[in-house]
């Protein structure tokens, strides 16, 4: 087993154009222990959660590491302290790799439009890791824009990725993608203005006319509306989706829906412009702690579940470094401080235990660590073929007024 791993790794390294001599000089010892570590990981030999950490660090091929890593992510999606990112600083201290962290992703499609041309030409514009939501990750993988991962460099991911996310439809064996954070889309309400909201359909109550917003993310808005109509967004047909869009359109025209937002509702809810809206769980955690009258509600019909994934785009200058980073993140004690800040749902098993030690109140929040009962009512949005995607997206964009 460890023999085979070493062979595989040597092949990989050769593929990466690292000369054998270089490997000999720096790598041989490391390669040995790498085999041992993945053996331990694969056989579940690591003692406690994150027990493989120690071996893993020794294993990293310092010679193959780049001096920097270019990481493109969404805004407010990693821990911040004093204008810096402690997690990234820790990574730099440990591996000597400086992470150029760019918060340049605001929207899946918009970002796709921005880098598509480069990816089609086989370059990533210098990016090593990008973070995309499930459906867009699937689209990019299908287009051949994403590098395949070398799983032997990702033992922590193999070990600590929560079972629910191990096999997903767009990437059944996680050959290309590593989850960054998951989240829930449901209703966020001002309980003082709209006290008895329980169902998705309460958003259409005429009492709240003009005080209601939905999301510009098609899958969230259409998915939740479908749930309210008794349709399952995971298995529903395109005509079900179009019916949901028609319903939304009717309420745009009659003035019920004030507008469609990204997370602008962060401002609209406290100001009282919005009383009921579709929104994301991570934002709700922050809103709830600032304002007692704001609450995230899992609608009785169910809610939407999604995951944002780390991907290595084709032509990334430091793919190996990116894998080392992904692997390093997949330790509960590394993930916990990130979680403490971003408040979404962590994909790393054992994060709750690690977070209990540093911030018990956050660790006990059911929005961050939902119970199995709650999660059972979560729905993922169906993977659409390009034609269906065009059809549904076109209809949706027309309704949201563009």
């Amino acid at each position, binding site marked *: 087993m460890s023999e085979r791993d070493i062979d595989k790794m040597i092949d990989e390294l050769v593929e990466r154009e690292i000369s054998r001599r270089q490997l000999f000089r720096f790598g041989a010892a490391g390669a040995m222990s790498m085999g041992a570590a993945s053996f331990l990981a694969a056989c579940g030999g690591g003692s406690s959660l994150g027990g493989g950490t120690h071996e893993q660090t020794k294993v990293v091929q310092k010679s193959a590491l780049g001096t920097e890593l270019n990481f493109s992510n969404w805004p407010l999606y990693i821990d911040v302290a004093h204008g810096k990112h402690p997690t990234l600083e820790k990574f730099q201290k440990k591996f000597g790799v400086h992470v150029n962290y760019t918060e340049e992703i605001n929207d899946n499609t918009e970002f796709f439009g921005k880098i598509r041309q480069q990816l089609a030409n086989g370059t990533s514009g210098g990016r090593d890791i990008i973070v995309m939501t499930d459906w867009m990750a699937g689209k990019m993988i299908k287009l051949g824009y994403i590098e395949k991962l070398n799983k032997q460099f990702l033992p922590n991911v193999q070990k600590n990725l929560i079972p629910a996310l191990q096999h997903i439809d767009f990437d059944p064996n996680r050959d290309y993608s590593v989850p960054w954070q998951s989240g829930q889309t449901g209703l966020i309400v001002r309980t003082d203005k709209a006290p008895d909201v329980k169902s998705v359909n309460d958003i259409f109550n005429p009492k709240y006319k003009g*005080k209601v917003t939905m999301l510009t993310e098609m899958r969230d808005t259409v998915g939740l509306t479908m749930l309210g109509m008794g349709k399952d967004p995971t298995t529903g047909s395109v005509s079900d989706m179009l019916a949901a869009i028609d319903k939304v359109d009717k309420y745009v025209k009659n003035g019920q829906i*004030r507008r469609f937002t990204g997370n602008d509702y962060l*401002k609209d809810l406290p*100001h009282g412009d919005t009383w009921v809206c579709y929104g994301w769980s991570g934002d709700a955690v922050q809103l709830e702690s600032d304002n007692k009258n704001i609450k995230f509600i899992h609608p009785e019909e169910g809610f939407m579940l999604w995951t944002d994934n780390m991907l290595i785009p084709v032509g990334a200058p430091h793919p190996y470094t990116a894998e080392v980073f992904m692997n390093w993140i997949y330790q509960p004690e590394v993930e916990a401080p990130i979680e403490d800040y971003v408040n979404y749902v962590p994909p790393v098993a054992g994060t709750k235990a690690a977070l209990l030690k540093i911030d018990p109140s956050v660790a006990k929040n059911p929005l961050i660590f939902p119970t199995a009962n709650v999660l059972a009512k979560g729905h993922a949005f169906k993977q659409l073929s390009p034609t269906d995607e*065009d059809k549904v997206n076109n209809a949706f964009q027309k309704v949201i*007024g563009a």
Partner: protein
Amino acid sequence: MAFVRRHRGILPLALLLPGLAWLIIFFALPLYYQGKISLETGSIFNGFHFNWHFRTYTDAWSAYHTQFLRSFWFAGLSTLLSLLIGYPLAYAIAFRGGKWRNALLLAVILPFFVTYLVRTLAWETILDDSSPLVSFLQTIHVISPHGRVLATTGSVVAGITYNFLPFMILPLYASLERIDDRLLEAGADLYGNRRSVFRKVTLPLSMPGVVAGVLLTFIPAAGDFVNATLLGSPNQTMIGNVIQSRYLELNDYPTAAALSFTLMAIILVMVAIWAKVAGTEALMGTEAKT
């Protein structure tokens, strides 16, 4: 030097070169590519192919003429409002400003030191449903007791007016300030009262400023999408929003390009008509009279 002396005709052409290159690189080439894209069909998955597909234009027009008309309506209204607000202001600064002239002009320009986006976001806060301004408007019955300002046509037009007002004021000021005082005196000597001197002398002489101000306000206003996004609802969408979503959300480049071209063509025609009717006539007329 000898070369230039021998080919005297070349010098002006050579001096034109930088400007010409600028026009070609930043105007003609993008226009050419845009035009080419607008006649392609395809998708981001299968690639785009050029095939003289003119139907994109008619399809885009029939799908989005509402947003076109709305854009021109909003832009026209904002331009008119800017003129009504800007003219007295520019007049006051030019003729009554005295030693405060420069300070007042600076006050007009000062908002420009802050980003467009931030200024518009500020209005989003000023006009939100629980703001003092809105409750005041409710008590004096300008809006209904449960009415709102944000996410209405009013807030979008107000936002556009606010954002482009300086483009109106500055050219107006420039032409008013240049008016020779002696002409006004002459008007008064010839038994003109204040009103008729303004009507017969000041106003015609300031027409170049009006023409320029209207153009500078109307053109960017018609293509604006920020105000509609931040201060409007889906019922206030302008053509700029549609173009943005076609490009960035749907990656439907041909339709986006066709819409941009249509917008450009309509504005060009409007500007030509405006220059013919208001512009040159007024300009020439006053030149001849003075």
